[in-house]
């Protein structure tokens, strides 16, 4: 072999190797994006599952509570004035502080601290007249300082926590009076303007209701439509038209469905705004083509021998379909449905258009109560600048992703466990 050919061969082999590397790099990049992304979310969000408390002592002084009765009833406790008692509980942390500076201490706990003082007494009426320790929700600034998310070395005037508050925080922390516990209220309380009190209960229920409504509307219609198109439809222009229609509908941007919901469900049918009912119907229109396509594919996968056997036994077309083909196709249909619902679960834009973006601080009990949904909650919170909300958004994303993973796993299990392999 002469030198020229040798060189050429070497060049070609190098090109081969380079090309393989391009592919590896491309896959590596895609995987790196995913890893960076997950790392960002988890490293920012895991601390939201911890809640910071400040422990102090409260004296349930009858005089300050303005309770006159000798043995006060539940109503007396309910109507007592907790302002001074709660105030004293906080200011007792630093008795030397001049009165006009008190706000600095009060700002270290959430603005609902008075309610927390009240709730403790209502739960334990025998605390009346006694001095007892109490846990108060720390404000989001103190919370972030405690979790180490807040830089302490920037100049005081740029900080939301001033030097005095940091000093008190350090003192409490040394005494062990700053507690960190699992944040149950993140899951049980509705949205709030204050980061330390905000939870996902309202948006979670909103999501559950919308998904149920979506399932109730889209699943029956989609399965029936798929059965018709796959088993009964004559081959003509009209069924071709329906088919093209479904394929195109599956690729229409989701925001257009939001416009449909706004222009028809709200404006023409006058359904209640901001509710999971309207949200669910809008989402169901979106999932309809997805489920139809999945159901058709799994109907198609049932081998013709099943149909022929049933027909040979004298079953009618409808009986063959309903007794044999459809039950056999159900695993595939169901897993397609779950995947469609998982897509709907992450959808945000159409829900914003139908008004599910309103601030809701109650937990919805029915599909016709105003609600947000998890993805919309992510959007709402990420528009709020406070540091505490960044952590909440990441935690909310983790909950949402956990849900999606669960649903996709369910789809896999349904498919692999119940689907018959024909071969």
């Amino acid at each position, binding site marked *: 072999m002469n030198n020229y050919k040798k060189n050429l061969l070497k060049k070609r082999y190098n090109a081969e190797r380079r090309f393989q590397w391009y592919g590896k790099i491309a896959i590596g990049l895609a995987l790196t994006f995913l890893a960076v992304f997950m790392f960002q979310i988890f490293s920012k969000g895991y601390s939201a599952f911890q809640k910071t408390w400040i422990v102090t002592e409260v004296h349930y002084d009858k005089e300050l509570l303005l309770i006159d009765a000798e043995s006060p009833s539940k109503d007396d406790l309910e109507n007592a004035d907790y302002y001074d008692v709660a105030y004293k509980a906080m200011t007792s942390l630093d008795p030397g502080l001049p009165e006009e500076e008190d706000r600095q201490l009060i700002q270290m706990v959430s603005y609902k601290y008075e309610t927390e003082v009240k709730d403790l007494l209502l739960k334990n009426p025998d605390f009346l007249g006694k001095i007892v320790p109490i846990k108060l929700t720390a404000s989001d600034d103190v919370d972030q300082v405690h979790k180490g998310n807040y830089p302490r070395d920037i100049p005081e005037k740029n900080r939301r926590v001033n030097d005095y508050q940091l000093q008190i925080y350090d003192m409490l922390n040394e005494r062990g009076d700053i507690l960190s516990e699992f944040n149950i209220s993140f899951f049980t309380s509705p949205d709030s303007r204050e980061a330390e009190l905000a939870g996902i209960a309202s948006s979670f229920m909103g999501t559950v209701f919308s998904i149920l409504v979506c399932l109730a509307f889209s699943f029956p219609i989609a399965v029936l439509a798929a059965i018709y198109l796959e088993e009964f439809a004559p081959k003509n222009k009209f069924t071709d038209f329906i088919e093209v229609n479904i394929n195109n509908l599956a690729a229409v941007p989701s925001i257009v469905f939001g416009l449909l919901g706004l222009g028809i469900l709200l404006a023409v049918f006058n359904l209640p705004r901001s509710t999971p009912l309207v949200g669910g119907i809008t989402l169901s229109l979106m999932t309809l083509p997805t489920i139809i396509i999945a159901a058709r594919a799994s109907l198609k996968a049932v081998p013709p021998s099943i149909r022929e056997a049933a027909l040979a036994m004298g079953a009618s077309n409808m009986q063959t379909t309903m007794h044999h083909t459809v039950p056999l196709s159900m695993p595939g249909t169901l897993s397609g449905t779950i995947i469609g619902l998982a897509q709907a679960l992450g959808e945000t834009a159409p829900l914003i258009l139908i008004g599910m973006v309103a601030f809701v601080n109650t937990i919805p009990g029915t599909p016709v109560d105003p609600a947000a949904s998890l993805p919309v909650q992510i959007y709402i919170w990420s528009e709020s600048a406070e540091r505490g909300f960044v952590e909440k958004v990441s935690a909310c994303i983790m909950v949402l992703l956990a849900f999606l993973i669960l649903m*996709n796993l369910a789809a896999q299990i349904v498919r692999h466990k119940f689907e018959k392999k024909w071969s």
Partner: protein
Amino acid sequence: MNLILVTFIILLAFTSYYFGRKKALVIQSSQRLTALPKFYGYYLAAWCAAPALIIFVLWSVFEPSIVKTFILQDYTDQNLTKNELQLIYTKVKALAVGTYTGNITNFLDESANKYIQLKGIANSAKVAIILAILIFSLSFAYRSVQKNNRMREPVEIFLKWVLFVASLGAVLVTIGIIFSLLFEAIRFFQAVKIFDFIFGTHWYPAKTFVRDGQPDPELMKDAFGAVPLFAGTFFIAFIAMCVAIPIGLLSGIYLSEYAGRGVRKYAKPIIEILAGIPTVVYGFFAALTVGPFVKEIGNAMGLEVSSESALAAGAVMGVMIIPFISSLSDDVITAVPQNLRDGSYAMGATKSETVKKVIFPAALPGIVGSILLAVSRAVGETMIVVMASGLAANLTMNPLESTSTITAQIVVILIGDQQFGDPKTQSAFALGISLFIVTLFLNVIALSVVKRYREKYE
């Protein structure tokens, strides 16, 4: 009220199934039937539910407009425009339900009373008619439960009709989309010339907001030019494709031609996770991590970078689209017949030469189709742009500045309370219809290209 009626009809259908079956069983105990007893039950249930529900739906659809015509008859002599009539009707309705807050004129009060009266009549008439239909159809059906009547066929024909109607659902959704968009968009184009919308270069709808009366037509002419939005949309989609096409295509090729079974089994589903992450999550990521990162790098290189740059939004969108391109191109490459590969290897070509010179050209139509689908996806993407790119519509080709897109503007306009009848709100629907047309166009081309490609190798 409506709920009770529907529940009643459905409950009645269930009971009639039971009675139909029972009657058939009684007959069966002495004589042979021509169908299974349950078909007699189904037959009765179908006759019970279907006519009543159809009438119910038709009634509910037409009742409001009929009531409206009756109410507005009193106003025909006042020479009012359509919008004014609509306003009066809204007021009358609000007054009748007790949510009206303006001052009440005698005329309005009279109309509200008439409205309540009409609604009452309509409701009782509805109940009466539906009950009559129920009784009639049930008695007819019950009488036909006899031994010689073949019951399976009518039940199956009925079921087939139900299936057919369900399959019309998808068509109905499309019609709904087109109507809801067209209806508002046409009203928008009555206020703003279609020419000004398509070729205008200033998008600033907030300018047209006037508290009372009509906005200045000169202002309107200059406020709804959608060119910056079209340009921004395609610009961001272009950036996204610059990220997604090389990475997606190369990983698709690697997965289908080079990767061993083990790599393929794990890498493919993991890359597809990227497609399953909700877009709002990407938006948060783009706004909080990528945007500031791009800005920092740009500033370090001495460039002026907006913190909401088109580059950040486009790049993140590109990452989202990678799996679309990689999966679809993986599929089309795998579909290329093996004998093309074998022929190339037999000539002494290396694997990469085969891929570049034989497989890629053969798979090109399919790949182009999948890229077009991905572009349509990028054009319709909303949340990433809303959260990571700007909301002000700049006409710019600088990826470091902020731009806005069609979808982002729709959200900006419609978030919060909307005032129907306002050109600003209507403009969102005009944008929606242009988005719908663009994506439909892309999809139709892509689907037909892919379809033709599939047929070629099957």
